[in-house]
């Protein structure tokens, strides 16, 4: 693939230096560890640019999940036999590993089916603590997963739902925060990184303001964990959720981390199975946190595999992964702007964004764009990305989105640009 103009990284951002042998001009990190990247699509080498939807998995993760079923499969916390003990060790080992990754004690990490499940757990679990007229503050850039549970909660409990609007530049309009954060605000729920705008929100600043009002802060870190350094205490949040599959781990696995005080405020939403303390025919009491929130048989295989993903991230180092995504994003912004006629959303500075860029071509609908790119083996996302209110605000029903992971290269972005021009040519533009 032809190389275009040299990379222009934002001021203060150094491209990767190739020291690990697989990163030439910030080219790629550990690509050889991802077996799926070897396949072709429509007769072309795959160019995978849909990492915000899900990342590909290192071979070590795939092997660990298979190994669980081959060697250890048993239910957790109940087997009085060797396999049961091994399965429990792997499951609890995942909790410990995630705790270490986020710098939070393992007993404050709840294992869920995913980030959406974790957000439903928080919203539903807080219901009993809220009164009609209490206020929930969200943002205009939320993924449906961090919006619909609050809409539903507000409907059920008679709460008032407010939102922080975005500016024309695609950042939260924090000038509105003082008027939106009121004495009745009980919860502020916001995304760390927008899955459409790419914007990295100043969570710590917002959390500090929310706490001054006595509100709890819920952070959806689905787009940030595994891509930029995230330490629980640094964000100042009361709850943080993320999903394993967007951080190079398996699907069907997510996490809720919280402060001890905040977790204690949650009522279990799902009850039954292993989350009990004592059950009679008439009553039940709950196990300690975090087991209290883990009803039913969990996805132990996924939990057994996820530490391998975190090991891969740690080996690469988050600092290096972040620099790589900034470098790719800077290059994508530059090249997409040079195409002409595209609307590009979110901040123009790559270091203010996560590793994704959504755009809109008024001449080629995103579906057609994605379809024509797919014919060239290039995978992007088209649609509203489960952020319909944001798209309404942007004045479009759908956008095209390219999003990056450790294995992506500048050549992948060159291929994307070539594909956009090809799509335009099909439509006679």
């Amino acid at each position, binding site marked *: 693939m032809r190389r275009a103009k040299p990379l222009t990284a934002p001021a203060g951002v150094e491209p990767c230096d190739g020291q690990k042998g697989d990163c030439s001009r910030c080219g790629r990190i550990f690509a050889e560890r991802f077996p799926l990247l070897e396949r072709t699509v429509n007769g072309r080498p795959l160019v995978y640019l849909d990492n915000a939807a899900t990342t590909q998995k290192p071979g070590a993760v795939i092997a660990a999940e298979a190994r669980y079923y081959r060697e250890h499969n048993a239910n957790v916390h109940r087997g009085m036999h060797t396999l049961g003990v091994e399965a429990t060790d792997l499951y609890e080992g995942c909790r410990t590993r995630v705790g270490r990754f986020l710098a939070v004690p393992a007993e404050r990490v709840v294992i869920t089916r995913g980030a959406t499940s974790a957000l439903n757990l928080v919203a539903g679990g807080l219901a009993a603590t809220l009164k009609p007229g209490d206020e929930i503050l969200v943002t205009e850039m939320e993924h449906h997963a961090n919006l619909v549970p609050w809409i539903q909660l507000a409907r059920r409990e008679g709460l008032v739902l407010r939102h922080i609007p975005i500016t024309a530049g695609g950042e939260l309009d924090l000038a509105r925060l003082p008027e939106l954060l009121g004495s009745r605000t009980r919860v502020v729920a916001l995304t760390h990184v927008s899955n459409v705008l790419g914007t990295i929100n100043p969570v710590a600043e917002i959390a500090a303001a929310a706490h001054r009002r006595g509100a709890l802060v819920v952070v959806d870190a689905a787009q940030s964990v595994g891509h930029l350094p995230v330490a629980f205490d640094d964000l100042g949040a009361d709850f943080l959720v993320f999903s394993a599959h967007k951080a190079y781990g398996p699907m069907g696995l997510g996490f809720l981390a919280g402060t001890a005080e905040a977790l204690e405020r949650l009522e279990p939403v799902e009850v039954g199975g292993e989350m009990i303390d004592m059950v009679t025919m008439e009553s039940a009491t709950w196990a300690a946190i975090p087991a209290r929130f883990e009803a039913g048989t969990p996805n132990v295989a996924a939990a057994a595999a996820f530490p391998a993903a975190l090991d891969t991230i740690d080996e690469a180092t988050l600092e290096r992964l972040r620099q790589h995504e900034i470098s790719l994003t800077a290059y994508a912004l530059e090249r997409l702007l040079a195409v002409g006629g595209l609307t590009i959303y979110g901040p123009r500075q790559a270091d203010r964004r996560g590793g994704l860029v959504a755009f809109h071509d008024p001449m080629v*609908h995103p*579906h*057609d764009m994605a379809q024509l790119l797919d014919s060239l083996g290039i995978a992007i996302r088209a649609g509203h990305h489960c952020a319909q209110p944001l798209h309404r605000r942007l004045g479009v*029903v759908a956008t095209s989105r390219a999003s990056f992971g450790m294995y992506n290269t500048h050549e992948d972005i060159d291929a994307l640009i070539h594909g956009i021009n090809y799509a335009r040519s*099909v439509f006679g533009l």
Partner: protein
Amino acid sequence: MNGGMDELYREVILDHHRRPRGQAPLAGPADARAEGKNPSCGDELELELACAGGAITGAHVACRGCAIATASGSILAELVPGRTPEQARALAEAFREAMHSPDGVLADALDPGDLEVLTGVRKFPARVKCALLPWITLLSALDAQSGDGRAAPATTEA
């Protein structure tokens, strides 16, 4: 084009996309109308029909969607006028069936015109909803006309 794109984006479809028919508003008030959407991607379509003497006399289609949805709406606007509501319904249902069948043939008796070309989209399962959106909206508009006059929102998820 490669990867089957010449099958999906045939010249007839591209022509309907570039110059969609049914853009002009109806001359008078609509006799039937419905709004359709594809929730999985956000595409939206508004359809208005004019009727006289037991037949559909005009169709106005406003589509915020992809080339396939736009072309399908344009073909609808071209094919539906002149048919009775029953004939239009039969065509819509035959198209829906064809899009879910392996051979995807529309009977000549239905006089399917350019709709025959659009059945090629069935080879791209992710795009079948795009092609069906206008026709599902049509069925909703016809249901409303024959029922209480209020169109239920039509959705490709139904």
